[in-house]
Structures are given as structure tokens and as C-alpha cells.
């Protein structure tokens, strides 16, 4: 596909007039998807897709088009030619955009890992054999994911990974289930069987009668996957320069109130060097290995897209258009995972949260539900699963004055989302122990 992309880029060069510039981003995948319910197949198939996003620029006028590519060179070249003409017409009708910014020089890159994937039909057959007798529900996705960038200045980047991602739950009854995932580059049967054995152990605990908690404040341990739900929401609005400057960040109080901060143990960064996402972005800028976002509980830096860089007259750090993290990392602490239950004492062990949203965005106040395997703990021992509960609490409490500790161990959580395409985002997070979290419903 890389060679095909290069051929299309040569065609784009032949279409330019005058001082026009083009930027092209290709994103494609060849994916097998198998969806499961009750340890059987619900739907299974293959998707081949490749999209080229073309930006045509002339001075301060610019416009985009996003085309699905057929793979037929003559047809795709004809559609690109038509698209260039359409964009050129649009540029003639547009006022200047003072915030257009793109890379005009820089190195090219090529980052491809050889595939170690097994055929999806083989893996699916094997995993279904393994989970028989369980109420197994979820999805297996595998195949090549590739992203390319090129521009009329001759810069080129290519990033390709062949990965699999199995995301599943095993249900006991009603909404009582264990949630797990397994992702990587090469399927290992023993690893998967080990995870299923772990699930069986947790399911045994779920068989205890569930406890319904009353609205009150409780001590809480948030496992890394639960913390990821919180930080995914915060990432939508929390770390971009534009949201910062227009006061739309949930960390607004940290800007307007000098004393407002998170706990000094909180260190958050965009850790491109250790994530799965490519190091280049859509305007050709290269991301630094790491961008510190929160250090010792205080704002350090923001994610700055080229557009915001131009608008606010600062340097870009290669953020995407939405200025959202793609490889968010939180530093671990001193709490050993093996000591979590003892340190929690009496409270709620939360493996997963769900549907987190804001009660008050400006105040940094969030709400959400517990989901899957969450447990009531007494004197350091798991006593019973809990029925779902709603929390409603501020970030300044959860990750601020009530934060008692972070685990030294961290989990690398690969995003299983497949909206439009298979995600390459990830988070690397510890678990957190928090006192006095408010539950309302």
C-alpha cells in the first residue's frame, strides 16, 4: 500500500498550479472482525478500507477532502484530480485563514513491523474452543493498520502495524461479569488460557450475593482500567491549548485559582515514545517523545496543534486537530498492587467505570457508573460484588486532596475502539486509592 500511496502522491504533484501546496494523509486497514455472544459467533467478516485525506493550500486559503480509495489506480487518480479541482474552486471562494500552519521541511520516516499474526479464522476457532461452557461475549479484531503522510515538499512518513485485539466479558448472570482484554502482535494460546483461568477465579467471587450500597462516601480503589475511563473524558477537554485559552477545560480552576491543584503525586504526560500511535501528525509535524501535561499536580504544558500554535503564537508540539492525548501516561507511585486490598481496608474495589460525564465541567466535577466486576471489601478482604452505583465527585478530590496512593505497577491499556477505524491509542496507568468518594444513586 505504501508504494500505491507514493504513486498517488506523484499524481498529486502533477495536478498542482502556481503556489499551491498539498498535504495527504492516508489511513487504511485490512481487518477481520468476529463478534461473540454466548461463546458463539454473532457476526464475522472482513473489512478492507483505505481513506486519503487531501488538503489543498494556496497562501492562507485551504480546504480538505476525504476520499475512499478503490485500489484501482486509474479510477483513484481520476477522483483525486476531480477533488483537486473541487478544492481549488472552494479556495477561490474562501476568506484568508490566518491560522493555517503546516510543516515545510523535515525528515521522512518509515516504521513497519513484520506481521506475526495468525489467520483470524484459526484464532477464532481456537478461542471458541477454549471458552466453551462460559457466557463469553465480545470481539476479536486483527489485521494490518497503516497510516501515511506526504506533502508537495517531498516529506513522507509511513507507519504500519499488524495487531490483534480481543476484548471480552464473561457473564455469570444479569450484569455480573468479568471484563478482560488481550492485545498484541502474535497470538499466544497459553496467555489467553491463563486470562480465562483468572476470569474463572473472579467469577467464583461474583457468585456471592451482590450487595446494594446506600448513597454515601466510600473509600475506593480504582484499577487502571477504571482510571482510564475518567482520564478518557478529561482528555477530551482537559489538555488542549485551545480549551485552556477559551476556558473550556475541566481543569479551569487550576488556571483561575492559584491554590487549586491536583495531588503532588500526579504526573501526567503525552508519551508518544511508548505508545502505538505514529509520531507524525496530519500537517507533517513530528511529535516529541513526551509532553509533560501535569507535574507534581500542577499544569505544566498543553497539547498544541499547528492551528492553535498559529492562533496563540506559540510553538506546536505536534498535537492532533482536537488536541487530545493519544498515548497518555501517568506515573506510578509507591503502593504495591499486592497491598491494595489491605490499604483499602473497607471500601469499594472498582475494576471498571462506565459512561463518565460531567456534573459541572468548569468545576471539574464528574459522574459515572460502576460496571462489571466491582467488589465490596471489608478489612482487606473481598466480601461480595456490588450492584451498580453512581459516583459524583471532583477531580480535585479524586486526584487531589483525597488521593492516598498510586500503585507502583502500571497497566498498558490499548484502546479497543473501532469507530471508523481500529484505534492506535493507548494509556499507561497505575491504580489509585482514594478516600471519601461520593456515591449518589
Amino acid at each position, binding site marked *: 500500500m505504501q508504494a500505491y500511496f507514493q504513486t498517488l502522491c506523484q499524481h498529486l504533484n502533477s495536478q498542482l498550479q502556481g503556489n499551491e501546496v498539498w498535504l495527504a494523509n492516508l489511513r487504511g486497514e485490512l481487518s*477481520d472482525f468476529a463478534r461473540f455472544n454466548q461463546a458463539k459467533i454473532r457476526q464475522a467478516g472482513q473489512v478492507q478500507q483505505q481513506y486519503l485525506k487531501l488538503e489543498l493550500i494556496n497562501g492562507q486559503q485551504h480546504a480538505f477532502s476525504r476520499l*475512499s480509495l478503490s485500489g484501482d489506480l486509474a479510477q483513484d487518480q481520476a477522483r483525486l484530480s476531480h477533488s483537486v479541482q473541487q478544492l481549488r474552486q472552494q479556495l477561490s471562494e474562501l476568506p484568508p485563514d490566518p491560522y493555517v500552519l503546516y510543516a515545510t521541511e523535515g525528515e521522512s520516516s518509515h516504521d513497519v513491523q513484520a506481521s506475526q499474526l495468525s489467520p483470524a479464522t484459526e484464532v*477464532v476457532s481456537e478461542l471458541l474452543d477454549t471458552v466453551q461452557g462460559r457466557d463469553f461475549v465480545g470481539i476479536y479484531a486483527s489485521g494490518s493498520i497503516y497510516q501515511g503522510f506526504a506533502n508537495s515538499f517531498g516529506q513522507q512518513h509511513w507507519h504500519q502495524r499488524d495487531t490483534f485485539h480481543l476484548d471480552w466479558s464473561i457473564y455469570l448472570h444479569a450484569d455480573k461479569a468479568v471484563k478482560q482484554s488481550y492485545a498484541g502482535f502474535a497470538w499466544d494460546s497459553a496467555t489467553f488460557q491463563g486470562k480465562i483461568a483468572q476470569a474463572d477465579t473472579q467469577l467464583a467471587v461474583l457468585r456471592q450475593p451482590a450487595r446494594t450500597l446506600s448513597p454515601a462516601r466510600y473509600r475506593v480503589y480504582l484499577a487502571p482500567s477504571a482510571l482510564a475511563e475518567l482520564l478518557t473524558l478529561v482528555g477530551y477537554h482537559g489538555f488542549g491549548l485551545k480549551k485552556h485559552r*477559551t476556558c473550556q477545560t475541566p481543569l479551569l480552576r487550576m488556571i483561575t485559582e492559584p491554590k487549586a491543584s491536583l495531588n503532588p503525586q500526579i504526573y501526567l504526560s503525552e508519551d508518544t515514545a511508548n505508545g502505538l500511535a505514529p509520531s507524525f501528525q496530519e500537517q507533517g509535524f513530528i511529535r516529541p517523545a513526551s509532553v509533560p501535561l501535569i507535574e507534581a499536580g500542577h499544569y505544566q504544558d498543553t497539547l498544541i496543534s499547528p492551528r492553535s500554535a498559529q492562533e496563540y503564537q506559540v510553538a506546536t508540539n505536534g498535537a492532533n486537530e482536537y488536541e487530545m492525548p493519544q498515548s497518555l501516561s501517568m506515573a506510578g507511585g509507591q503502593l504495591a498492587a499486592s497491598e491494595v486490598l489491605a490499604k483499602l481496608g473497607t471500601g469499594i474495589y472498582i475494576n471498571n467505570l*462506565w459512561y463518565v460525564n460531567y456534573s*459541572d465541567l468548569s468545576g471539574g466535577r464528574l459522574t459515572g457508573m460502576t460496571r462489571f466486576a466491582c467488589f465490596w471489601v471489608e478489612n482487606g478482604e473481598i466480601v461480595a460484588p456490588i450492584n451498580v452505583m453512581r459516583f459524583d465527585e471532583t477531580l480535585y478530590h479524586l486526584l487531589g486532596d483525597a488521593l492516598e496512593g498510586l500503585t507502583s505497577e502500571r497497566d498498558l491499556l490499548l484502546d479497543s475502539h473501532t469507530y471508523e477505524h481500529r484505534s492506535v491509542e493507548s494509556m499507561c496507568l497505575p491504580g489509585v486509592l482514594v478516600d471519601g468518594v461520593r456515591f449518589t*444513586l
Partner: protein
Amino acid sequence: MHSTLKQRLQNSLPAVDFCSFRYVNFLSETVSVRQSVAQAPENQDDCGVMVTILDKGGYGYAATSDLSEAGLKKAVQQAQQWAACSRGRLVAPMDLHSCPPPVIGEYVHKVQQPWHSESLAHKVALLQAETETASIDSRIVDSFAELEWRQLEQFYLSSHGSEIWQQTEYLMPSLRVYGNQAADTQRRSFGGGYTGQQGGLELLASMNFYGSGRRLADEVLQLLAAPNCPSDRRNLLLAPDQMVIQVHESIGHPLELDRILGDERNYAGTSFVTPNLFGHYQYGSELLNVTFDPSIEQQFASYGYDDDGLSADKTYLIERGILKRPLGGFFSQQRAQLQGTANARACHWNRPPIDRMANLNIEAGDQPVEQLISEVENGVLMRGNRSWSIDDSRNKFQFGCEWGQLIENGQLTQVVKNPNYRGISATFWRNLTGVGDANSFEVLGVSSCGKGEPNQMIFVGHASPVGRFHDVDVFGGA
């Protein structure tokens, strides 16, 4: 084009028990302005085919953007491979007898003022005018206006003899204004962000888009000066642009039959509704009438046929508060042995159909809004959703709105900010004490509803009058 495509698809039909092709051509153009600065327009041209095969008890699909005969045949082979792999392993039998009956049909929605009848420069200018008129005060820190146009052309052809052409166009105007004062930022959105309809530029006038920038900015400043919503239990009046999300989350999703059958338990969640409840369960008060209605011409998800080729008709899901039937397409109906609706939908050519909301509406009642307000001694009106959260069984919810206004002794009084409320679906709708008449009925929609594995983001329509509920837990911010 149509005859060429049809011939190519027919030539690619394999010798299997059942095969369907679903061709989708999606065009869109988005024009946007932020704080009077025109953003780069974005155009989309997305075209592909989904092949679905049922053969000897197996099921498989394949999606490709290569529409050549060679490309289609390759996709057919991939679908056959998955059909072979799934044979004997499917969660429910899918065979020759479990396919929708063949149908030949067409559905075309005609627009009055086509998108391309106005220049790009004109569209940019009208959006600039809205953001410029929003700049009425230094506390207005951001404003954004956008017009998104979509055209969707679909052709469904099956080996059983189905041939369905459908073509629809959509306009989605949006406008948001933000104001800030110290540690408080408030937002107001045009139509609460739920304003997409089928049609062309004629919708801008009927939706009252013109002049909204100034109105929203005024309201943002009122919110910045307002106290927080009180925290107590009281009557709650929901405007249609909040009823939309209340219906979506606490009626629409729980009634999706694939959730009830467990398909979504690993991602979007399950449902507190169980199959044995249909026909007798008291979902809401007697004032609650909910329909699946693909027949309102301008509504977002009006269509003639769903993506499995099933003919779509208006159907009551809840009538006088009693739960009647689920939102389940043909295959889900077969699995559950329940009557459903024509709501198997896919977001694009590259995802398989699953049970979705389409147009899910609250039928209008007979009370003017003024009467609904006048009967309230102590309450609050909320409009314009800004936050939503509900558990995976679609029961315990919390919603937040942009705009609140107290109701005291039958009168709308003080504006309040950060209005939120929480409740439980299974009991909330039973507290419905008033439904607005046709004058308060608004045709709205949700442009991005996420569900499915692999994930699918799709648009759905909701139309609703004002609704009034008693004894609701409301609260404010900070």
C-alpha cells in the same frame, strides 16, 4: 450508473443459499466558522459495498471499496470464508428461511433548496454573521458555527430478488457560544445540539437558525450571572431538546432487542427490559406514547427500508404507558420470537447492520406549555443537554442541561445554571404528569449514537413535545 452497478453486482452473486450486496455512496460537505474566522471546508466522498452471505448454516460478511467485478468477487470469497468458519458456531441459526422477504422499492427524499444552490462564500458569510453577532461582551470567549450537508445513496440487492434504491439528503446546522467569568464557563447551543433533519438549505429558516448567535450569547451572559440550580426534589419540565436525550438513553437503548438478547453486553451494555415484559409492563404513566416512526418526512432517520431490506412503518412501542414491542430488526425478531421494527441499520458500507434506533418519538399530548407550567407550584425547566450518563442496563441515569429556569407558583422565574437531575428509568417515566401539545412538538435528532462491535456511530431522529415529571432529584454545580 445505477444499471452498471446493478449489473456488476448481479454478475458477482455467488452460488450460495443467500447473498446480499449493500452499496453505499456517502457525500458530505462541512463549512464552519470559529470566532468569525472561516475554517477549512471538509468534503467527503465515501463509496463501498458490503457483501453478506448465508450458506449451509454459516454467516459471513466482507466490505470493500473496490467496486470492480474482481474486487466484488474477492469480497465474496472473504465472506464465504467467514461463513465456513462460523458454520455450526452461530449464536442463532441464520439460514434460507430466516431472511427478510424479497422486496422491490425506492425511497427518495426531495429537498426544496439544494445545498449547492448557494455558493460556499454565501454559507461562510452567514456563519460569520452568526458568530460576529455573538460577540456582544468581553466575557464571550468562543463561538462556533457550522453547516454540515450529507447525501446518502444506497442500493440493496439480494439473491432472493430484493432491489431497493434509497436517496436522502441531510442538513445539520450547529452553533455554540461560550462565556467565561473567573472559574465559571457557560455554554449555549443552537437546538441543544440536536438539530439535524432531512432536507436542504430551506431548513435554516424553518429551524430559526438566523439570528441565533445573538440570542445564545444573551443567554450565556444570563447564565454567568445566575445562581446554581437548587438541590432538592421538585417538578421537572423538560424542553424537547432535553427530552431528546432522555428518550434516547432511557427508552431507546433499553428497547433495542440486540441488547436484550445480550449482543452488546461487552460494549454498549445490556437492558433492564427482559423479553417477558412486552405486552403488559407499565413503562410509564398513561400519558406516555412512544413510536418508531420512519414516516415523518423531514426527520433524520426516515426511510422506506432498513439495511436488511425490511419495509419500515410507523409502530407503537409504548402505548398509554404499556410496553408493546422492542426495537428489533428481522434477525433479532427471529431470535427472540417477538414482533419488532425495521431498524437494522449500518453506519456505513464497512459495518454490518445491527439493531439501532431510527426515528423514536414521543407522541404529542393535549396540554399547552403554558398550562403545564401554570400547574406547577415548585419546579424547574431545563433545556439544552450538555451531559449524559446512564448505567449499562440503562436504568440509573444523570443528565445535565445548559439552561435552567425555576417555576414558582405557576410562573417561570429565576434563571439557574448547571442544572442536573438524576433518576431511574424504570420509575422516572411513571412520574410523567404532563405532555405538551402539538405546538411544543419539535423534530430533532442525535447525530452520533455509538454502539456495536466493531463500533458504529450513527444518526437517529427523535421528536418530542415538552414533558413534565414530578418528584425529581435536581441539583446544581460545583
